[in-house]
């Protein structure tokens, strides 16, 4: 789960992480009030959307007066912002963060992740702020320091000093840097985060350390024990189809193609998309119905997949282990009747109770394209999107 920058900064502030003075505003009037309250002569106005690349997309602007804050807020808020991560339609901006602008002497990148290699919470530090960390890791790996934290003892002072030295932070700033890193670590650990990015972490001209930007992601599997984090979820930032799928226990990700996919298991769901692409088709979505899928769950899966008007055919690919093919088949039949599905439906069933499942489909009297394996299923589904498959339809 992702949260907004202003929410991440609020959370960090509670742990004693220094962040710029500022507050969120939902309207031009609120922005003006925040600016007046701040009472400074330089402001930054930042669009609050989850997607990255806001600066380059024009979502971060400077202002020198309260009047200018009004003007730039009006330019940003209440319209879509297009960045490298939003897609061409952009993401609608509902709020901005107004902060005091600071004079920056130096910038650095500071991150915390769950590192796959060390399998620990690990600091990732890079001198120079605003960097594309993945790019830097590839081209200048020596600029990046990785410091894993032993969960038995937590982040230690000497580790923070090591990281600070790598970031060329020394002298008077060393001790505050240690304090800041330990605060960020506690903020990460105590909230079941999976990512913190402070990019940039700034040293100001007057010698302070500040988290100028803040990004946090949380472990979906741990949200149940972090209700204060779950309250920060912003459904406006998510695809409504994905939100609805989640409410039904389905894992759905919208894509650009026209072959709707209903599959069990994340790996098989990805492989099904890949098989469609190998037949020169394009998947409309990723969808994992999970284990123990009831007929109702399958019906919901159809409904969500068909909300996407690009879908020209649906491919159901089930390899039942913990699932039961007969339940899946009942769900398919129910969906076809209730939703009056008009696009061709290709079904491939295998595994637990497969014969019963095929019988349910055959006895329904409905029209399906049945496939015996993954390759045939993908080929039939792609053909069906062009309407060429109708000659193969059988009762």
């Amino acid at each position, binding site marked *: 789960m992702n949260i907004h920058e202003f929410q991440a900064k609020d959370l960090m502030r509670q742990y004693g992480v220094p962040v710029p003075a500022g507050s969120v505003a939902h309207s031009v009037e609120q922005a003006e009030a925040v600016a007046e309250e701040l009472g400074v002569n330089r402001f930054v106005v930042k669009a609050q959307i989850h997607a990255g690349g806001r600066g380059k997309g024009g979502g971060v602007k400077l202002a020198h007066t309260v009047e200018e804050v009004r003007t730039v807020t009006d330019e940003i808020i209440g319209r879509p912002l297009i960045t490298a*991560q939003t897609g061409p339609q952009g993401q609608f901006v509902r709020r901005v963060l107004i902060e005091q602008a600071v004079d920056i002497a130096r910038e650095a990148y500071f991150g915390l992740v*769950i590192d*796959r*290699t060390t*399998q*620990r*919470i690990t600091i990732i530090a890079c001198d120079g702020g605003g960097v594309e960390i*993945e790019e830097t*890791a*590839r081209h200048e790996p020596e600029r990046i320091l990785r410091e894993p934290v*032993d*969960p*038995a003892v937590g982040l230690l002072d000497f580790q923070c000093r090591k990281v600070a030295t790598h970031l060329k932070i020394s002298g008077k700033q060393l001790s505050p840097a240690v304090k800041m890193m330990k605060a960020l670590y506690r903020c990460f*650990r105590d909230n*079941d985060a*999976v990512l913190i990015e402070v990019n940039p972490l700034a040293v100001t001209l007057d010698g302070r350390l500040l988290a100028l930007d803040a990004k946090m992601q949380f*472990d*979906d*599997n*741990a949200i*149940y*024990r972090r209700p204060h984090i779950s309250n920060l979820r912003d459904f406006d930032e998510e695809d409504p189809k994905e939100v609805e799928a989640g409410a039904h226990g389905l*894992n759905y*990700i919208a*894509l650009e193609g026209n072959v709707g996919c209903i*599959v*069990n*298991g*994340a*790996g*098989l*769901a*990805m*492989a*099904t*998309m*890949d*098989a*469609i*692409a*190998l037949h020169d088709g*394009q*998947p409309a979505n*990723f969808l*994992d119905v999970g*284990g123990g899928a009831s007929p109702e769950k399958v019906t919901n899966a159809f409904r969500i997949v068909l909300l996407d008007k690009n879908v020209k055919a649906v491919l159901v690919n089930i*390899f*039942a*282990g*913990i699932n039961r093919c007969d339940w899946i088949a009942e769900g398919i039949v129910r969906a076809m009747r209730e939703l009056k599905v008009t696009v061709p439906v290709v079904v491939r069933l*295998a*595994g*637990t109770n497969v014969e019963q499942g095929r019988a349910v489909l055959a006895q329904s009297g409905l029209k399906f394209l049945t496939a015996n*394996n*993954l*390759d045939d299923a*993908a080929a039939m589904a792609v053909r069906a999107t062009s309407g060429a498959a109708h000659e193969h339809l059988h009762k």
Partner: protein
Amino acid sequence: MSIFINKSSRVVIQGLTGQHGSFHAEESMKIGTQVVAGVTPGKGGAQHLGVPLFDTLYEAVAKTGADVAGIFVPPPFAADAIMEAIDIGIRIIVVVADGIPVQDMVRVKRYSAGRDVVIVGPNTPGLITPNECKVGIMPAHIYKPGKIGVVSRSGTLNYEAVEQMADYKLGQSTCVGIGGDTVTGTDFLTVLRAFKDDPDTEAVVMIGEIGGSQEIEAAAWAKEHLGKPLVCFIAGITAPARRRMGHAGAVIAGPADTASAKMEQIEALGAHVVRNPSKIGEAVHRAVQ
């Protein structure tokens, strides 16, 4: 022969009386798995499926000699159950639970460091040595005894590969699901090492996904040490960047995480890379000819 489990394995199920634990223990008993004990705190002294129940794993092991643990408790309680099994010295632990908080697993990994234990999962279909022993949730009837070792992150792709192998009359020595999470107990490399030492495994199928580099590290080791053909598929050629594709660990964070990049590297390391998920069985057939 096989790896990790065989017909002599004595299995204890933590969470035996739960819906999943109960159903899958019974299924695994049908292929001959010796389920010798169940642990459900508060139900010690009773019986379930003809098997004695205990309040603690300590008693279960002391009284029944169990040496493999299958963990079917819900995710919030799974880490505790795993550490209980590690503490008592069980060397094969299978964690089926899907949805364990990743920081819980970070602590479990720290707890298990330096100990002689293989933790399979979490979020795994489990382990199966066909017709001998199953600790997990896979449909046992599709698995046949044979000479191919299979290891995958995904459960359903494990089934898919095994079904395709049946067309070529290829059975399996042991099949392992290492799970789709970011922090998993065992990894591809550990499983490949075990397959190397198993004289009855003639070839290994490794089924990976987008995200991370453990498939590449395993393939690099295999090039020097495995001494058997390695067939590899990586799912997610069509996966978009930055999205978690169902599995917590299946996410493209950078260029090296993509399926194409991983398959290219693995191919350069000499493995038989198959790019079509429908042709895994055929690739194994060709590799062992």
